[in-house]
Structures are given as C-alpha cells and as structure tokens.
C-alpha cells in the first residue's frame, strides 16, 4: 500500500495551487457579486492545459489522469467554488461524456478542442419534471433519414448559456424508458433551433452560469449520436460517476479552506484575554473538522486511484459526493460559528463559501439519490434489487 502522490502529481498540485491563488482567488468575491463567469480565468487555464487535465495527451489533454483532475478540483474548490463548478461542468461531465463514449472520430472532432480549452462543454440532462428522476425526461429525438430531430426544454444547465458543444440526452423510444429508450447526442452551439432560455438567479455559485436550453426541431447528424442508440441513460450515469468523484474533491478543497480560515482566525482573534485557539470549545470544532477532512481526502484520492487503475467505482463515487458535500457544509458552518458576527458579514469570504457549499448537497444527484445509489449497490451484492 502506498499513499504517496507521484512526483508529477506533486508538481501539478504546486502549479495548480499557485495558479489558483494568483489568478482565481483574487476574482472570487468579484464574480460572486457581479454574477459573471470568469472567462479570462478559463482562458488562462486553457493556455496551460488545465481544461484537459485528465484526458490523454493524444486527445490534446494533459494526461494527468483522474488523480490529477481531483487535485485540480480540490485546489479550485479551496479558493472559488464558482470557478470549480465551471471547470467541473466542462471537464467532468461535458467533455468526459465524449471521452467515455465517443467514437474515435467524435474524440478527434469534439474532445480535442475541449481538452485544449479552445471550446467549452456542457452536459444537458435535467428537465423541469425530471430532476432526481432523470429517467422521466421528455425531450425527444426522432430519426429522419440520416438525421435526428430534437425537441424539448432542458433546465439547470451549468455552462449551457455559453458552451460550444453540449451533450444532450433525449428519449428515442418512449416505450422502452431508461433502458433502451434514451440516446445521448452531441449538439454544437449555433445549430438552428438550439436556443438559450432563462438564466437562474442563484443563492450561491453565482460566478457560474445556469441556464435553460430550448431545442426546437434541432437537426443533428446521425454521426453525433454519443455511444449507441438506446444506451444514453447508462452512458450518462457512467459520466456522472466521474463527476461525483471530482465534486467530492472540490468539496474537499472547500472544507480545507474553511479549516485554514478557522485556524487563522482562532490564532488572531482574542476574547477573554486569549486567542480563540486556547478555548477548548474551538479546539474541538477544529479537531472534528480536520478529522472529517482527512477521512474525505483518503476517500477521494483512493477512488481517484481506483479510476486510474481501471477498477469499478460507482458506489464509492457516490460516497465521495455524499460525504464530501456534507463535510464541506459542516466545515463551513463551523467556520462561520468560529468567525462569529464578522463571518456573517459580506466582508469575509465565509458567507460566500456558506452559500456556495449548499449546492453540493443538491446538484450532480441530490444526496438522497447518492444514498439510493450506495444502498442499491450494497443490496445488489446481497441479491436484492432496489427500485427508487
């Protein structure tokens, strides 16, 4: 058993941390206030290859694997959850779906520019009446000769408003449902009939864009079917597994930032004549927080190693997302308590982190869905099939 990072991953973390602290952190408060996507940061990330961190170099990526991707997400989550969300939606689910299920031609045509960061991706699944129940989508695709015609409206699409390439799931055979009746498609922005609808005015991650996407007779060539016709649901769930692991990594970074801020504040803030660090109530908060963070770190990087070594990881990825989002929320809640009234003001980053952290318990499958995934995997090993 070896728990050390490879030298290239140590070097990558040093690069990413320096980048995050110099280029991402200074904008975090501003993009939250203004509610804008930091495209300038994304361009800088693209220039040094960070937007293709986990993809092989033959597809224009960095070749740092899932471990490298988790390092990137942890370091981004530590300084700015919005930026981590933009990057996660681009790499982890948008481009990842092309990488996992695309044909060689699709990878050459779509993954290459995505990995190089020349184009940005989004992953389009959720609908107004199909959130946790993703199999209830109604967007449909009908074959017409060598083309498919898409119709429907998708909601809560991170990066959707500006993505150049989106992967969309649509019903292709209503009689078959999730198994056999759904197909994933690659759609390019600018295709006639493909429009951006309303933008969500969110509580947190305000530096990321969440928009409605409307498909009105959007014609997509047959070669843009991602994976096999009828296997879209399985393919999207596979992509979400990776997304969940790296969301756990981003939560790890958020929790780590909360710990660092708490330690710093406990060292400097004096009450009753001593620094807070000398108060046992604060010490216990810090100790509990640090313990949970270390447990999460072990989980996240173990699962990253499992992905890199080709082992099945669906259940553990759900655990990363579930535990990560809860650890981050708890850590930031405790950090706010340690900061007291000042932490509640907009002059401190804690309030932003507090708003940002909450979404992690909701998106990429609510924590309730993660518990269903974990439980059904456990029961399946004991011969019991659970239906949600």
């Amino acid at each position, binding site marked *: 058993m070896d728990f050390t990072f*490879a030298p290239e991953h140590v070097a*990558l973390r040093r*690069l990413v941390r320096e*980048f995050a602290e110099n280029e991402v952190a200074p904008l975090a408060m501003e993009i939250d206030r203004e509610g804008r996507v930091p495209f300038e940061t994304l361009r800088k990330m693209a220039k040094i290859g960070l937007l293709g961190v986990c993809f092989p170099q033959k597809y224009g990526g960095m070749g740092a694997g899932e471990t490298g991707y988790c390092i990137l997400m942890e370091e981004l989550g530590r300084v700015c959850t919005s930026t981590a969300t933009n990057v996660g939606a681009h790499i982890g689910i948008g481009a990842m779906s092309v990488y996992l299920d695309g044909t060689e031609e699709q990878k050459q045509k779509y993954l290459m520019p995505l990995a190089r960061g020349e184009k940005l991706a989004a992953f389009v699944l959720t609908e107004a009446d199909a959130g946790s129940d993703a199999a209830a989508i109604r967007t449909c695709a009908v074959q017409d000769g060598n083309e498919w015609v898409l119709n429907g409206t998708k909601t809560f699409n991170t990066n959707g408003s500006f993505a150049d390439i989106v992967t969309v799931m649509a019903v292709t055979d209503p009689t078959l449902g999730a198994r056999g009746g759904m197909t994933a498609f690659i759609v390019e922005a600018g295709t006639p009939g493909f429009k951006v609808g309303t933008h969500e005015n969110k509580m947190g991650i305000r530096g990321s864009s969440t928009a409605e996407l409307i498909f009105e007779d959007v014609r997509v060539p047959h070669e843009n079917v991602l994976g096999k016709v009828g296997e879209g649901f399985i393919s999207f769930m596979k992509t979400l597994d990776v997304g969940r692991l790296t969301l756990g990594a981003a939560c790890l970074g958020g929790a780590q930032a909360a710990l660092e801020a708490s330690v710093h504040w406990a060292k400097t803030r004096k009450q009753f004549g001593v620094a807070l660090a000398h108060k046992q109530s604060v010490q216990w908060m810090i100790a509990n927080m640090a313990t949970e963070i270390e447990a999460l770190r072990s989980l996240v990087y173990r699962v990253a190693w499992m992905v890199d070594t080709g082992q099945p990881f669906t259940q553990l990825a759900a655990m990363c997302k579930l535990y990560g989002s809860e650890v981050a929320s708890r850590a930031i809640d405790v950090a706010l308590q340690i900061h007291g009234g000042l932490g509640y003001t907009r002059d401190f980053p804690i309030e932003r982190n507090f708003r940002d952290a909450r979404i992690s318990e909701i998106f990429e499958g609510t924590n309730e869905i993660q518990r269903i995934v974990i439980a059904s995997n456990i029961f399946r090993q004991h011969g019991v099939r659970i239906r949600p």
Partner: protein
Amino acid sequence: MRIIVLVGRVLDPSGIVVNRRRGRIFINREEYLVNPADRCALEAALRIKDATGAEVVALPRGPLPDDDVLRQALAAGADRAVYLTGDGFKGADDAVMARVLAAAVERLGGADLVLAGATTLDTRQGQLGPRLAEALGWPQIVGAWQVEATDGKVQAVLQAPTPRVGGDRVLAPGRRWGKTPPPRVGGDRHQPWSPLPPPPPPRVGGDRGGGYATVETDLPAVVTVLPGALKPRYPDGARLINIYRAEDAVERWDVADLVEADALKPLLERRGQDFPPERERGVRVSGTPEEMAQAVADALRQQVRG
C-alpha cells in the same frame, strides 16, 4: 545562442517560525520554493528564448538533495538541465560553486549568457553571479530589472540606488522591489542614471530615487536579475507531467569530473547561529485625527533630523 540559468531552492518562509527567545528556527512545514530571483532569471532567459530561439540550460546554484528545481526549470521551458552530484560537494558555498559552475560552462562547450538571481530569499546571498563572472573572466551586470540579448550584446535595465533619507533604513528591502513596471529597454544608453521616458508612476512609500538606466556589455556575460523583476510564466501542464514522468529528463554530472578535489574546499565555515538585533517597536498614536496627524508629523520630523 546558449543561455545558462542558475536555479536553487529555498525553504518556504511561510512554513517556518523564528523563536528569538529560544534562539531557534522551527520548521513547521518543510516545503521548498525555487528561489524567487532565480525564477525571474529563468523567465528572463525564456523571454530571450522566445525572441531569438536561444537554447536555455539550467544548472543548480548550489548543492541540491534532488533534481526537483531543475525539473521545474525544464517544465517552465528550459531545454536542458544538469544535476551536479559528488563526494565533498554537499557543503559547497558560493566560492566553490563559482569554480564548479565555471568548469560546467566549459564542459557544456561554452555559453553566451549566464543568468542568475541577484539574491537568495533565505540567506540573502548575492555573491554567486559576481564570483562566477570572475571565474569565467566575463563582464557582469548585477541586479537587472530587464534583460535583452541580441547580436553579441546584452542590455539590462538597472534601477538607480535609492537615496538615503535620514536614518540608515529608507525602505524595507521587499518594498523597494515593488510592482511598478520598469520602462522598456531603450532610450539613451549612454547617459547613466538618467530617468528614461516615460517615468515610472510614483507610488506611496515607493520613491524610486534616481530612476532607471540601461547598461550594455558584450557577450559572453553574467547578469543577475532582481526578485520580482518579471512575472514568471506558468509551465505547460502536459510538458510538466512528461518531465516529471521521464526518469532521465535531467542529466547527472559528477563534480569530480569537473574540478579537482581541493577546489571543493569551502571558504565559509559555520561556527554557530545568532539573530540580528531586534527592530525597535513603532509608536502608537491616538486621539483626534488632528492630534494623530500632528504626532505623526512630529515623529517624522524627529526621524529626519536624527
């Protein structure tokens, strides 16, 4: 054109605590950085490479326990890096390094320009560049803001010495290398210390005294670069990963092949450690804004008069 850059490592100062009372330095987090001035020297070399296609070779500025800083230099864009190892080399000081590096330059088949950081972050050593220039018999420019090399010449922008006002400390050393961008290389090269147009914008607490001057010398030469002079680039990610995965990315030379054993005898001998005298505490003023302003003015006046 071949440019040699000297890179070294320093302990990350944010991971250490100095305890004066116990006369010790505690290392809480042992992490190392590329010496910031050396990173600027590397950036200067890479900019010359971008402009002229020069070859950049990284050499260590001192004995290193591993080749990590050299890999960082390669990742940033250096073409070659050489790690120096050998018996009796571990305690090498700048005098030894100057001899070793002069021999290394010769073994590389010569070079046109050597760039190094003007100072190290940890012990504020600035001798290596000048000593190496002496060992090579080359001209030297010390403490450059900017470096350009073309057609057998090197030009560097230097900052005029800050005039001393009142006491012996004018500005904290870290501040003096503030962020005001120096003027581009150019202007009148033959009028030393003339302020070049456009003058740098004045900053609060950052009076730059006599302005900038551009100096020029023939190649080959040694130029040392100030920390904070240039913003180092981020390495390309894929290049970084490949360099850290390649076992043989860094060449390894034995110093015994470069110099005789007695050339490795250091000039410095460590006899103990002591702390510089503690700085005087400042004065806290209170009262109405008028009273506080008056108190500050009085204190300043007293400082200037001594």
